[in-house]
């Protein structure tokens, strides 16, 4: 065999291999080609096997040529294989296109009641200002619900809070009532705190959430059972300026950093001076709308704790002062989420609850 004939043969092997590869279109055929053209008995491999039969001076040249053919075939194979894999991938991707507008799987999940969500937000905001949560009973004595809070027996201020009474026999001037506000908790909390050190009671900074009851007909705006959150800060140096700052900070947290507040004179027996606390309507920017009327939203009542109440709680009103305020978490939720009927809250219709 001449040197040129083996080189020609190698060239033929290369060409035959490449020609066979070109039309292949699937992985199976590709693997078959690989066995046939690069496998152990492939023609180029056979050349390597019989390399020893060539003249010694020819061997390097033939070996090099055979190697070039093998590399060429391998390269072609890899290229072809990559092309085919990419084609297949592209095809498969194309065929797997989803209708992404189909609905997702309905995952049943739980939710907190909107009132709980609102309370938690308030706990967090007030918590950051140093207020801790204090809870107390819902059925109270007249003494704690009214008298200790500076509502004397028979006082017209009682007309502000129509009351449910509980049947409990004749208890004279101290009947059992459904609490009309969470304020009796103020007295309980002050008494508990002052009992720990009657001479120098510790300062107090609490919020009092809870269910309250008023004897009134219900409609979209009025509930006979509603919840309230009150705040109380008592200490040696608490002032009205602090009250304003605390509630204005609250308004900014609840309604945005631009929320404006106003305080106007009011009357509550257990605070003096007393104020109503309004926030500029965030729905209309204070221009006046169907929700706010004149641009301001009534949010709650507040004031400096009345000296009689401090005294009833065991705090000397000459040495301590305090502020108190009360808000309706339901009212805030109604304003923020456009809830038009307060009766939705305790009715527990899933169609309402699922919106939170």
């Amino acid at each position, binding site marked *: 065999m001449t040197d040129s004939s083996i080189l020609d043969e190698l060239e033929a092997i290369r060409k035959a291999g490449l020609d066979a590869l070109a039309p292949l279109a699937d992985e199976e055929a590709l693997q078959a080609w690989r066995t046939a053209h690069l496998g152990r008995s492939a023609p180029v491999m056979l050349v390597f096997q019989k390399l020893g039969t060539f003249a010694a001076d020819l061997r390097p040249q033939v070996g090099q040529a055979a190697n070039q053919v093998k590399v060429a075939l391998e390269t072609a194979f890899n290229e072809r294989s990559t092309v085919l894999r990419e084609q297949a991938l592209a095809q498969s991707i194309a065929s797997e296109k989803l209708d992404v507008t189909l609905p997702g799987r309905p995952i049943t*999940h739980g*939710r907190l009641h909107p009132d709980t969500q609102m309370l938690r937000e308030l706990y967090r905001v007030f918590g950051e200002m140093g207020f*801790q*949560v204090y809870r107390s009973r819902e059925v109270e004595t007249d003494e704690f619900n009214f008298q200790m809070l500076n509502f004397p027996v028979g006082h017209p201020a009682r007309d502000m809070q129509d009351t449910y009474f509980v049947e409990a026999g004749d208890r004279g001037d101290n009947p059992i009532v459904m609490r009309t506000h969470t304020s009796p908790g103020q007295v309980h909390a002050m008494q508990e705190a002052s009992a720990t050190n009657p001479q120098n009671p510790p300062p107090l900074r609490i919020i009092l959430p809870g269910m309250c009851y008023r004897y009134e007909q219900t409609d979209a705006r009025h509930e006979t059972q509603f919840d309230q959150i009150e705040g109380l800060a008592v200490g040696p140096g608490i*002032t009205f300026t602090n009250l304003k700052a605390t509630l204005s900070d609250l308004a900014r947290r609840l309604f945005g950093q631009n929320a404006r507040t106003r305080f106007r*004179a009011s009357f509550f027996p257990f605070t003096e001076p007393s104020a109503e606390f309004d926030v500029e309507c965030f729905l209309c920017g204070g221009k006046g709308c169907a929700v706010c009327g004149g641009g301001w939203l009534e949010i709650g009542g507040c004031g400096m704790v009345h000296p009689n109440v401090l005294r009833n709680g065991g705090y000397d009103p000459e040495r301590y002062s305090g502020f108190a305020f009360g808000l309706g978490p339901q009212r805030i939720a109604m304003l923020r989420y456009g809830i038009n009927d307060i009766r939705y809250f305790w009715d527990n219709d*899933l169609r309402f609850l699922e919106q939170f």
Partner: protein
Amino acid sequence: MKAPLSWLKDFVDTGLSIAEIAHQLTMAGMEVEEIQVIGLPMPAHGTVDTKVTGLDWDREKIVVASISEVMPHPNADRLTLCKLYDGQRDHVVLTGAPNLFEFKGKGPLPKPLKVAYAKEGAVIYDGHAEGLVLTTLKPATIRGVESYSMVCSEKELGISDEHEGIMFLEDDAVPGTPLVDLLGDAIFEINLLPSYARCASMLGLARELAAMTGKPLKQPAVPAVPAPGKADFAAISIEKPELNPRFTLGLIRNVKIQPSPAWVQRRLRAYGMRPINNIVDASNYVMLEIGQPLHAFDHDKLLKRSSGKPVQISTRTARKGEKITTLDGVERTLSESTVLVCDAAGPVSIAGVMGGAETEVDENTTSVLLEAAAWNMINIRKTAKAQNLPSEASYRYSRGVHPAMAERGLRRCLELMQQWSDGEVAAGVVDEYPLPPKTPVVEITPADVKRLLGIDVPAPRIAKLLSHLEFKVEVNGETIRAACPDHRMDIGEGVTGKADLIEEVTRVYGYDNIPEVRMSDVLPPQKGNPVLDKEERVRDLLVAHGLQEIISYRWSTPEREARRIAPGSAADDKPYVKIANPLAYEKAFLRHSVLSSVLDTVERNARNRDHLAFFEIGPVFLQGEEPGLPNELKRLAIVMAGQRQTKGWQPADTGKMDFFDLKGVISGLLNGLRLDEVKYVSGEYPSFHPGKCAHILVGEKQVGVFGELHPGVRGRYDWPATFKAPVLAAEFDLDLLLSLVPALYQTSDLPIFPPVLEDLALVVDEAVTAEKVEALIRQTGGKLLADVRLFDLFRSEQIGAGKKSLAYSLTYQAPDRTLKDDEIKQLRNKIIKRLEYEVGAKLRA
């Protein structure tokens, strides 16, 4: 209460717009809830912080006119034609006003009638419509007569809801004058707080407005009547001065009962009171003007009762069972706390609340004995409440009217009665004043103000602010000594008085002028609220398990709650906490069962949803042995029912939730609360199927119970016909549960050495519980057995009747080495032997 701007102007001229006045009143504690504009230009949108209603009268189109003749309508008996002059020309105007009938067909009137006239194109209210409906006057033909304009009623002009006839104006009104110049007004509807009794009058409100705006108050002149002299027409005796500190009487003779002047009637109506006659109106007018309620007796009726002797008035509390018929014609039985005004023959009025019918002023009255008194506010409130008789007088008396006002009211009222009735006021006032109130005098300093308000207000400024409200002040260095004016009863003494005064200072100073300063006071001891924290953890865990939280009404009824108890089970016989004054029977009892609340919620929602999973945390109310404060016990109730998953377009597990769905939630909850030693014991509960009920024990304590609703209970609820799913429910003693929750818990390291997994299938008798089998496996496996999980349960003929197969997946793992095969084999054999020995388990092939 309502306050017309025109009336306030009798006492103060603020020079402010309607919007500004409303703002001043609102900021000072007299919240203006609504402004009713009458004829004046409406305040621009955005300038008023309250609701505004009303009608802006066109100056050209709504004017004064005079009617010179009232003629019959040719085709209708109930209509008349008025010959009318509007300042420019004559018109013939059609009207159906009944108060013109008396002038019909009488020819030219001797004195023309002055009326409000709306020309063509004027916008007024439709007098015949329900409520306030605007209408524009257009030409029309009514019964053959052309009509294009109108003589107006008060309703048509938005002055009041009076539409019985047209409105007559004063005789001196000039035709052509724009009506707004005569009658334009704004009525402020003010929410008067209980402590603002001093403001329940025009003078009271004007005084506040003057103080807030720094404008002078026009003090009412002291009336010239009665002339000085000895009052010999009556005598007064007061039994209980603490209930009746002062009582005054005046007399006016030869009165002519007739309607009050038109402007008086308009003012009364603007306030919301019905004009009666000049005498009654005068007493009401003075009450509204300066705040002192008055009562007019027919003096001749009193004389008749005393057989001609001078009237002897006494005040005393009612005797047991005593009765009186009041002005409204109702016979009332009085309680022994009711104070009565009596003459020698018996009671003539309920003090401060309502007069008696027998001695009331009527159209034949010629002589009036006028009462102005002071009463105990608590007592009057009690009587008005007991008699369900809220009146304008009792409204004021029950909030506190200063006794000094009595004489002022009496004199002013006699003056007006004289003017309006041509009567003669008898000389002298009978004045019994056994208990003049002490004038509170309070000393405050700028330091007091600083301590409460946090602002520096110098002593002279404080004095000035208080003097605006008529406090008599003396400044002595840093001390302001302020004496309370004798028209208010809401100022105390000592430390309370200081707070009262500081409130007044704040109001005049302006709440808006106080700066905001964040608290810098010492923080209290930080205790947190661990019970609440745990409660919130329960909520989070249950929400994480897919449950919806609810909050229910605390009300229920025994009947409603009885639904939760299966037929044949012991009824809930614990006494309910009962509301003494419920709005309805459905709201008359406080609940015993949160489970019952949640079941009610599931029942209501079953119509709208196929997957129902709710929980509620809240109190139940149990009456103790003694009537008094009930026990408020915190409960957690869970109810689940319906499809496991909501079906979408893909395959979903739409099987019905069962006992073990609920148990999964409960295990997840207790696990999440880090409670160890939880046991589930087959048990009974009145709400549950006896075979599908478990008690939940933590250690030895039963914290709750759960199960499938007893068929007899399930049947009591109103489910939709398609709703077939079992109803699963649980109830926990949450106080107890939370008390067992550890504050902290420990974690374990991640394993380094590989686990060995192995399955173990066993056949046991039906009576052997899964819990028992698992406990035996765990005990025997010891520390090397890291986990046991039941993955299959089945019964078949092959296994045999009364048997079941339980298949467990076991995970062996050692913290310090890789386990060897023979170690595991030994452990496995030990477990199998133990199970064979203890519960007769057989290894399944």
